[in-house]
């Protein structure tokens, strides 16, 4: 396949970037999207040019590093798939593909397609943890969990923190990420002691990091590679309402 790529190039956090056009030839439909970028980068390197910087690590859809906007779609056109797991057979010979970094105030561009997602760590630090005694592991049967709760918690735990939800959201909101974490922990017995301080802490950290407010637009869940459902946000809202009603929020 021969393709035209238009890629966002930006040399550093403070510099101005722009879209640059490249041609790539002889791309195999069996390559992954990142391998296609590797081919481009090899050619750029040989020509003495600066290769396109992009984040990646596992290349198997579990680490959450590889996010990029592909033709206006977070992680590209295939649903439930990270950019690293996307294959070139999703495109046709002669296509023009626009590649941009996530756009959000909370995710500043580091270089080219690489953004800094530390803001997600701030949300986690706001309450996305449980307190456990260290030492011996507790007896597993001592804390029974209903099957339905275990399944729902597991579904939410699949979030890989990639940031696609923020990138696609018309409000630039990180609520789906926060809701996935809140849901996972508030459904399990281990998450109960901090349940109501957690939700307030995480929402506060979310707002402070400069994310926008959620209006349930639902773009996030469409692009989420792990299919985190939108109703997790309802669970977050309910815990939040309960927390503010109980006024145990700020101690």
């Amino acid at each position: 396949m021969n393709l035209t790529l238009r890629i966002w190039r930006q040399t550093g956090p403070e510099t101005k970037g722009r879209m640059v056009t490249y041609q790539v030839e002889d791309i195999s439909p069996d390559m992954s999207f990142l391998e296609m970028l590797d081919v481009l980068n090899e050619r750029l390197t040989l020509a003495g040019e600066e290769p396109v910087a992009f984040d990646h690590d596992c290349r198997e859809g579990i680490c959450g590093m590889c996010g990029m906007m592909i033709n206006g779609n977070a992680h590209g056109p295939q649903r439930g798939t990270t950019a690293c797991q996307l294959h070139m057979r999703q495109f046709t010979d002669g296509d023009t593909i626009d590649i941009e970094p996530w756009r959000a105030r909370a995710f500043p561009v580091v270089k080219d397609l690489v953004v800094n997602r530390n803001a997600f760590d701030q949300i986690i630090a706001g309450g996305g943890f449980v307190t456990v005694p260290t030492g011996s592991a507790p007896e597993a049967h001592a804390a029974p969990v209903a099957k339905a709760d275990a399944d729902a918690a597991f579904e939410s735990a699949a979030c890989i923190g990639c940031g696609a939800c923020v990138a696609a959201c018309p409000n630039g909101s990180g609520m789906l990420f926060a809701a996935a974490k809140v849901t996972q922990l508030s459904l399990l017995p281990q998450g109960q002691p901090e349940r109501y301080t957690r939700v307030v802490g995480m929402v506060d950290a979310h707002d402070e990091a400069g994310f926008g407010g959620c209006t349930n637009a639902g773009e996030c869940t469409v692009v989420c590679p792990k299919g985190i459902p939108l109703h997790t946000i309802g669970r977050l809202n309910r815990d939040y309402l309960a927390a503010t009603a109980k006024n145990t929020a700020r101690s």
Partner: protein
Amino acid sequence: MAVTGLVLVLFLVAHMLGNLKIFTGAEDFNHYAHWLRDLGTPLLPYGWYLWLQRGALLVALAAHIWAATMLALRARSARPVRYAHRKKVQGSYAARTMRWGGVIIALFVIYHILDLTTGHLNPIGDPTRPQANVVADFAPERWYVTLFYTLAVVALGFHLRHGAYSALRSLGQQTPQGERRARGLALVFAVALSVGYLVVPFAVLLGLVR
């Protein structure tokens, strides 16, 4: 957003039911309009209840628009650099048109008050004959009024579909079954309300109400 929206929803339901009185005759409709002003007497002087309600609606609307503006400003500052290439809508169309839809509805509400409440833009504009005002409004030769009215009500239908769904979520709807129910409920509600508002002008247009 959800709470102020729900106050407006309550008003919209009552207002639609009241409008449907036009099908039981001019007499009834005019009596209903009079009753609105009479409501609460003798506890309240004549017309006071209506003013209380108008005040409450205005507060709800102002709070609603304030909250929407805050959300829009936050959204703007959350994405300082726009995408060069953006897929238009992947979620719901109604959700993506809440802001412009809301502005269109607000403009319509202003026009609507000047038309049928104060009578300034109505061909008859006689406050003692509300039924005649309505009939004159949607007369066939004033088709553009009916057209504008229809567009505004359709915009309202979209606004309510996402609004009701979103409000249920804001108030804690949290399961997959609940989500399906909320979607269905919002759709049925939005369609029912739009139809309820549209039958009046179309009945006048077709000469069923005169």
